[in-house]
Structure formats: structure tokens, C-alpha cells
């Protein structure tokens, strides 16, 4: 999978009225087959697991290509390639893709008018320049798209330089002359290409582009010492931080579309490295942002500190994320709940272990991260009795682990769902008469009676036996410490589960009792109006909750409900941000109405999409 990202070669084909010519390619050894066959043996999609091979189509292709490779098709001759890529004018200035056996060629053929030497020359001669990238056939669509984009940009840059100073005419002329003189002396092709690379800055640029693509996926090349071309191959660049992960541009785009003002940014590299990804002329705004950078604050605050508009900050952050220089987080704070990421490369041979102990002297990565086996916040790992420095170090460690995608943040989501046994999908009408959401057992007994079951059978139902369905060798009894862990986590997580009782509802019901009778008349009216937004069944369920008699509570609930915050789409932090609520306010409300709300923890899907790339 990894090697599919790297290009096999880069080819420069030139075509004008005098004919087509392959001017330069890199690497120099005969292109195509040698590299491809070796790779193809390794990566050929064959199914070695088939028990019966009913259809040997794939197998026959494999042998066929191999036989041709040892025969006449010992690599594609340069003449063949140049003829193929000197495309007809109809195909110019658009994507061109050609697949030959196991090599995929992608390019953006560009028509460039010659810089007019004499203004009198009316007939404008055009030349075609085609910078082709040869890739593995298995390279995915998004990788191909990136290479196409690169070819397109190179074409545009060359067009610009040609118009400015006739750069392309000069360079291609030089290359063609070198070819001619070398072929007269019967020199091998490799030497010719080497000589070209020495003489022509365009060839050097292509060579360095090829190397950059193979190593980092980030390139910043200047053409003709004038125009800087920056490009990032995300599939490659994002591997630098996490080996083996394939982040395609679509995933990044999806993550960035979900960007909100309350999100924060976490830089993955040093400040100095940031400048790689922007041409020097565009760096001013970036510095402005970097000056205000702080992983503890939201993009919104960063924008106001840096005196930039939030749209500009979005653009800059998107750019940094695309270039694998930054990642999106929720601003670090004490209440954030973190847990070990499912794909964290945590094993004894991991290079991260040493990197961690080098960064934080004397600390073991495993010991620190094992605290996050259960969802934990920084606030819970520190106590006020400890020195404040300890908290600072812990925050640093959390940031480090977030940078390396070892930790993932969990958020709390809310789903409005009256706990009511008849719902819109019910296919049995017999139970619609009964609504006892607060007395589940009673409900079940009635249901059972309706269906002819016995009351006793329900109440005497045994608890589930933990050993069902396991073999003798594998019988797993659950040790006591599991359940103690479970209860511990209930305490740790502030807003754990729906069974978590607190005494807020008590105070709420007391306060409603104290109301004046006059007020209560008005309130009654208001409550009725508020409840109109719910369907009949939902209204009944809400009515049973004592807090629904409190106008303030109910109006807040109705407001949030109408805003669509209770559809599992928005986490608490988002609701707090957009509705300007304090955490305690929101938690109290959720607790009062816990009978109609289901609260659960999960990851933010936008941010998680950058993770689960196993």
C-alpha cells in the first residue's frame, strides 16, 4: 500500500511543429518493466486463499505479462513513450491518464505559446509540454488526482515563466541540443540524461521533485530562480507522523468542512518548519496566526488575538492540516476526556517509546498512557495538593500524545428519546394503551399479560450468565477488578450514564412547589405553549418529569430541542458554545430531563475520521 504512493518515474515530453521528443526522465534506468515486475509480484492482487480455483483468469494474466516482460516488452522505449504522450491538441489542457499493463501514467498536457521573439511574427507557434508521472497501477483515485494536480501546476508555472522570460524555449532547446550531440557521439542514454540534469535547471527541478515525492511528499521547488512551486501529497505527508496510515485528501476535506469556531489547533512541527509550506511572500498572515497560537484556546480566540477574521484563520488552519503541519483538536482543558486511540501504535518495539522518554526525562510512555485506558481528564489525574508544575507537565504529555495520535478525545452526545415502549415503528397495537415509562417492570408485566405470558416468569428471570457460549478452554469468568474498574469510571466521568442519579431533580421539584398561585396560572399557560412543540406521546413523557413544571427549565429544554441539539449530532461543548451556556447549567438540565434524554460518550466524528486509518 505504501509504495503505491511513490512515483515510478517522471517524464518530460515536448512536442511542436518539428515533432515529438522525450527530453528528460528520471530515474535514468530503463523505465517500466524492471521496477514494475518486481513490485507486481509482490503486490499483484491474487487470492492465494481460494480453495478451489474455478476461474483462473487472474492467474493467466500474471503469467502472460511476465512472459512479455522477458520478451519484446523489456520496458517502454523512449520513442514509444514520447509518441504516446505527445497527445493531440484536443486532449490538451485537461487530465490525461493512460494505463499500460501495471503502470499508470498521469499528466496534464499543457499547450504553451512561444514567447514572441519579434513582435512582427504574427503566426503564434505553440508547443506542447507534458510532464508525466508514472505510478503503480494500484494507486488509488485520490493519489492519481494529486499527481494530476501537480502536473497541472507545473504546466502552469512553465507557461508563466515562458511568457515572462522564454524560460521553456531556452531549456527545451538546451535539452534537445544535448540529446543531439550525445547521440552523435553514441553515448549511452543515461549519460545524456545526467548531462542534461547538470546543464538544465528544469531537469534539476524535476529530479528534486521526484526525490521529494519519494521521501516526504512535501515539495517546494523554485523554477528559474523565480517562481516557487509548493505542493503536498497528503497520502505521503501524513505518514510522517503515523507510519502506514493513508490519509486521502477527501478525508481531510471532510474533517475541515466540519471545522467550528470552538475547535482548536495543535501544531505537529516546530515553528521553523512551518514556513516550508508557504511561499515566503505568503508568510505574513501565517506568522500573525502562529504568534497567537496556543493549543489551549479556540480558533475564535486565536483569531481575535491575531487580529484576523475567523474565515482567514479557517483557511490558514485548513492549509496547515492539509500539509500535515497541524491537526484539529478541541482546545485542551481540564475537563476534556481522553482515551487511548484504537489504532495507537503502542508496543514495546515502537520508536515512540524512546522518543517519549527523551522528551520527558525519566517518564515511561506506557505508564503515562495506561492512565488513559479508561476515559480520563487532566483534571482527574491531578489534585490541587500537587504542585502546579505537575499539571503543566501532564498537559505537555497529553499534547505530545495527541500530536502522535495516541490519544483521542471523547465527547458527550445527547439523544432525545422518551423511554416509552410504544414507538412509531410498533407493529403490535395491543400495547399502545399502556405508558409506564417510569415503571419498567410493571410495563413488562402488563405486556406479558397481554401476550399471554406469566407474571412470575418475568420476575423470576435469572440474570444473564456470563459463561454462555464459550468453550471449556476459553471459559472466561470476569474478575472482580473489572467491575471495580467499571464503577470507578462511573465516578470519573462526570456525565456518565442515564442511571447516574444526583440530587438536582430534588431541588427542582422543591422550587416548583414554592411558586405563587398567580404566577402558576401564567406559568401553566406558558408551559402548555412550550409543550406544543412535542408530539402527543413525547409530551406525555415530559409531563411526567417534575422539572417540566418549571418554566425556566422547560423553556431551555424546548429551545435546545428546537435547535436540534438532541439528535446525536452535537456534543455538549458545541451546545455550550453556541447557546452560551455553562457546563454546570447544561449538565443540570440534562440530569433533570434524563428520563427523556439518552446521554452517551463517543468520539467527534469529524476529528475521528483522521484517526481510524488502520
Amino acid at each position, binding site marked *: 500500500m505504501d509504495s503505491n504512493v511513490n512515483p515510478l518515474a517522471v517524464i518530460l515530453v515536448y512536442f511542436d511543429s518539428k515533432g515529438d521528443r522525450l527530453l528528460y526522465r528520471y530515474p535514468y534506468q530503463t523505465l517500466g518493466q524492471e521496477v514494475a515486475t518486481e513490485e507486481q509480484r509482490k503486490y499483484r492482487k491474487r487470492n492465494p486463499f481460494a480453495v478451489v480455483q474455478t476461474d483462473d483468469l487472474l492467474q493467466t494474466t500474471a503469467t502472460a505479462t511476465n512472459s512479455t516482460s522477458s520478451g519484446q516488452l523489456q520496458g517502454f522505449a523512449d520513442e514509444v513513450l514520447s509518441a504516446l504522450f505527445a497527445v493531440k491538441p484536443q486532449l490538451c489542457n485537461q487530465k490525461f491518464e493512460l494505463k499500460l499493463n501495471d503502470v499508470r501514467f498521469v499528466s496534464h498536457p499543457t499547450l504553451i505559446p512561444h514567447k514572441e521573439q519579434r513582435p512582427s511574427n504574427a503566426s503564434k507557434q505553440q508547443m506542447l509540454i507534458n510532464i508525466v508521472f508514472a505510478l503503480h497501477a494500484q494507486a488509488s483515485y485520490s493519489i492519481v488526482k494529486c499527481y494530476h494536480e501537480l502536473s497541472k501546476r507545473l504546466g502552469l508555472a512553465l507557461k508563466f515563466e515562458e511568457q515572462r522570460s522564454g524560460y521553456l524555449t531556452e531549456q527545451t532547446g538546451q535539452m534537445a541540443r544535448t540529446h543531439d550531440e550525445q547521440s552523435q557521439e553514441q553515448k549511452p542514454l543515461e549519460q545524456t540524461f545526467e548531462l542534461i540534469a547538470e546543464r538544465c535547471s528544469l531537469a534539476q527541478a524535476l529530479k528534486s521533485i521526484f526525490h521529494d515525492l519519494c521521501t516526504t511528499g512535501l515539495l517546494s521547488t523554485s523554477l528559474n530562480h523565480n517562481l516557487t512551486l509548493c505542493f503536498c501529497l497528503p497520502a505521503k505527508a501524513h505518514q510522517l507522523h503515523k507510519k502506514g496510515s493513508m490519509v486521502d485528501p477527501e478525508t481531510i476535506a471532510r474533517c475541515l468542512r466540519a471545522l467550528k469556531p470552538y475547535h482548536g489547533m495543535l501544531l505537529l512541527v516546530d515553528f521553523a518548519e512551518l514556513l516550508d509550506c508557504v511561499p515566503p511572500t505568503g508568510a505574513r498572515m501565517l506568522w500573525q496566526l502562529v504568534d497567537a497560537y496556543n493549543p489551549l484556546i479556540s480558533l475564535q480566540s486565536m483569531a481575535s488575538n491575531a487580529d484576523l477574521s475567523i474565515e482567514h484563520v479557517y483557511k490558514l488552519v485548513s492549509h496547515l492540516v492539509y500539509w500535515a503541519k497541524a491537526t484539529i483538536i478541541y482546545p485542551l482543558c481540564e475537563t476534556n476526556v481522553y482515551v487511548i486511540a484504537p489504532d495507537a501504535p503502542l508496543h514495546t518495539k515502537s520508536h515512540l517509546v524512546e522518543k517519549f522518554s527523551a522528551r520527558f526525562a525519566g517518564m515511561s510512555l*506506557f505508564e503515562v498512557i495506561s492512565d488513559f485506558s479508561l476515559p480520563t481528564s487532566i483534571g482527574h489525574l491531578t489534585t490541587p495538593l500537587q504542585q502546579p508544575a505537575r499539571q503543566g507537565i501532564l498537559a505537555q504529555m497529553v499534547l505530545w500524545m495527541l500530536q502522535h495520535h495516541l490519544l483521542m478525545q471523547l465527547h458527550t452526545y445527547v439523544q432525545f428519546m422518551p423511554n416509552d415502549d410504544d414507538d412509531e415503528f410498533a407493529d403490535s397495537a395491543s400495547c399502545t394503551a399502556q405508558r409506564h415509562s417510569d415503571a419498567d417492570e410493571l410495563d413488562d408485566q402488563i405486556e406479558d399479560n397481554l401476550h399471554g405470558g406469566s407474571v412470575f416468569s418475568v420476575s423470576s428471570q435469572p440474570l444473564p450468565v456470563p459463561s454462555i457460549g464459550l468453550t471449556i478452554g476459553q471459559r472466561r469468568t470476569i474478575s472482580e477488578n473489572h467491575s471495580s474498574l467499571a464503577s470507578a469510571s462511573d465516578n470519573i466521568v462526570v456525565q456518565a450514564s442515564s442511571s447516574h442519579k444526583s440530587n438536582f431533580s430534588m431541588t427542582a421539584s422543591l422550587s416548583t412547589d414554592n411558586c405563587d398561585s398567580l404566577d402558576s396560572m401564567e406559568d401553566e399557560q406558558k408551559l402548555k405553549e412550550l409543550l406544543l412543540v412535542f408530539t402527543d406521546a413525547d409530551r406525555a413523557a415530559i409531563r411526567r418529569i417534575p422539572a417540566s413544571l418549571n418554566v425556566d427549565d422547560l423553556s431551555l429544554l424546548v429551545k435546545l430541542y428546537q435547535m436540534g441539539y438532541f439528535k446525536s449530532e452535537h456534543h455538549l461543548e458545541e451546545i455550550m458554545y453556541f447557546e452560551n451556556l455553562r457546563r454546570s447549567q447544561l449538565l443540570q438540565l440534562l440530569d433533570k430531563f434524563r428520563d427523556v434524554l439518552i446521554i452517551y460518550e463517543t468520539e467527534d466524528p469529524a476529528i475521528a475520521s483522521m484517526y481510524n486509518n488502520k
Partner: protein
Amino acid sequence: MHSHAKDGSINVGGSHEGKIRCIFLSEFHATAGCKISCQVPDNYISKEVFDAINVYIIPKQHLQRCILTVNAMDVKIVGYPVGIQDQQKYARNAFLFNLCFVCDSRARSVQYEPVVKKLSEYLIMMEEESSILSREDNKVRLQNIFETVLRDLNERKVATIVEGDNTIYLKIVMHKPDPPAVKDHMVPLLLANLRDTPLENWDLTTQQILPYINGINHVARIAAEADVETDLVKSCIQNLVYYGVVQLLPILKYGNVYMTQNLKHLIQSSELSNACRKYVALNPDKMLPSVQRIFQFYASMTHGVTLRAICQRLCPQNHNIDERKMVIFGLQHKFIRCIHKYPVFTGSVPSGRQKMYTGLISFDEICCKTGLSPCTIERDIEKDTNVTVIWK
């Protein structure tokens, strides 16, 4: 959503499986040059497009008998250029032709390559026998063949055509990523729609193990019960995974911890929630469990809460919910994922079982490999100060 893109072959990296839009035969005519001699449906590839790309349809001699795909001008054309040398028969001593399949420019086309090649080989054979391609009056026959191939391959992925003395057999074989290695502790789950396939359609080993695949038994147990060697069972199941017949799940224990992900899909799609209600019902004759109950059950799954704890709290069986099916359904549709436990040895020199505590081998796998009960391992780890446990 991301996980869906990964397992389904429908949407891989922004491209998609596309149907064959058109099949055409192009030839190098002795007087007219490159042209399309037969096309189904007619005029799908216009003259302008063909003129722009005909270099790649009838290429130079070195590129003959290569699978050549060209993607330009919003069409993707998969071809296999061929030249038949015969000095007596043909005006230019050779007959050059190319049978091409056309797809949308964004569609994947690898799966058609062997088919194009095979059909070309048939056509070469028929041309040598009966000049089906080079003689004008045979065009109707060719047209009929192409129409059948296009229709059958798009609809059924298989086409069988009897044409004179020849029978053409074509089949589209999908390319899929290699299936992951199957391990002893994994549990295969047969996907529902394939249960009805008659047993005798499978190979012998599969026939023998199939009755034991129930979403509960793990691989080692299936091997023991079916009396088949474990390695054989593994490769057999791997094969079934490759073809999408079987899905691998983690072993179900009441001490397991699960975590929700993308749970909102369950309520957003009423189709899915109804399927879930049917699937998880303990007794299908009683009233199906409500979406609310099911959602509540899933929602209570989080780090540090074992399945047992949830069952004790919510008593799913009182609500006609089979918690085991619930877990299977959740894993299958990726609403939940299992949080595995990995012991890591942090001391200097590991000895004995400690060698297994690398952080790469999960607790389940260690139990399966050593044949020891989880209890023993648990105690072992507890005592050892050099071992840290990581849940992820």
C-alpha cells in the same frame, strides 16, 4: 462513514464501481484507416472523441497485446489491441483491431481487464476460423454478441454466449484487498443473505465447518467441533472473508468492554433500526423490542463498563432483547467496537509468558495461544509489577 468506505468495494478512494457503458470494436481499415466498426449502444463514442484518442486504440506494434486503458475526454476505455498477421487474407498483410469496454471516467475498470482480454482472444479465434471481424456481412452477429455481453455482464457479472461452434464464457472477478489473517480467537459470522445457499455449492471443507459458524464459536472451537485442522479452517474462513460471505468479530465475553461509534445511524435510518429490532429479539413471537431500549443499551456502552455490568443494570432479557445478538449486530454494523486489552511488558528482559506482552497481542489472543484461563493470566499480570495493561 469512513469505515464504510473501507470495507465496501463500492467507494474506494473516491472512485466507484461503474457499469460498462459501451462495447465497441475498432479496426484499422485498409482504406479508411482507424474506425469503429461495431458499437453497442450506437454512437456512444462520438467521432470527435474517437479521433482524439485513436492513437491509443490502434497503437504502434510494440503496444499490441498489452492491456491499455486510456482515460481522457470524460471516458475511460479499456482495450487490448491485437494484430493478426496473414499475408493472403488481408489487404495490408495484417488485420489490426481492438475490442474496447467503455466506462465513466471516474469508475474503476481493473475488473474488466481480464474480461476484455479473454473476449479478445475468443474474437481472434473466431476471426481465424470464420472471419467474423473482417467481413462486413458478419457485423450483425458481432452486434448481437456485444449486446448480450453488455447486458449480462452489467446485470449478472457473468455472460455465456453460444456463437456458431464456439461458446464464450465471461465472468467479472472483483479485485479486493487481501483479507486480514484469521486468528484462533476470532469469531466468524455468516452474513444473513448467504445462509440460504445450498450446502453442496460450497467446497468440502467449507461444507464441514459451515454448520459451526454461528457468530458465537471462535475459530479454534470450530476446528475442534468440526474435526478439521485449525490451519485449514483458518484459510477456509479467510477465503470466505475475501468473498464477503463471512465477517470476523471479536469473541463475545460478558467481561468485554465496548465503545459506541456513529450510533446516530441507528436511529437515522428506520430501515436499519427495524432490521436491528428483528435481529436482536429474544423471542420473535413476542413484541419486538423498541428502538429506544436498544439505543439505550448501546448508549450505555463505554470504556470501563463491561457487558455484564450493562446487563445487570438494564436487564435486556426483560425487554425481549438478546444481548448477545445485540452485540453482534452492533459490531457487524460498526455502531460499537470492542475495546481490547493489551498487556505490555515494561521491564528489561522478558521471560516466559512475558515475551508475549508486547502490546501487539491482545488478551484474548494470549488466552487462546497459551490455553490458559483469563483468570490465570489476569492474576499473572496483576502480580507482575513490570506489566502495564493498555485498553484500546
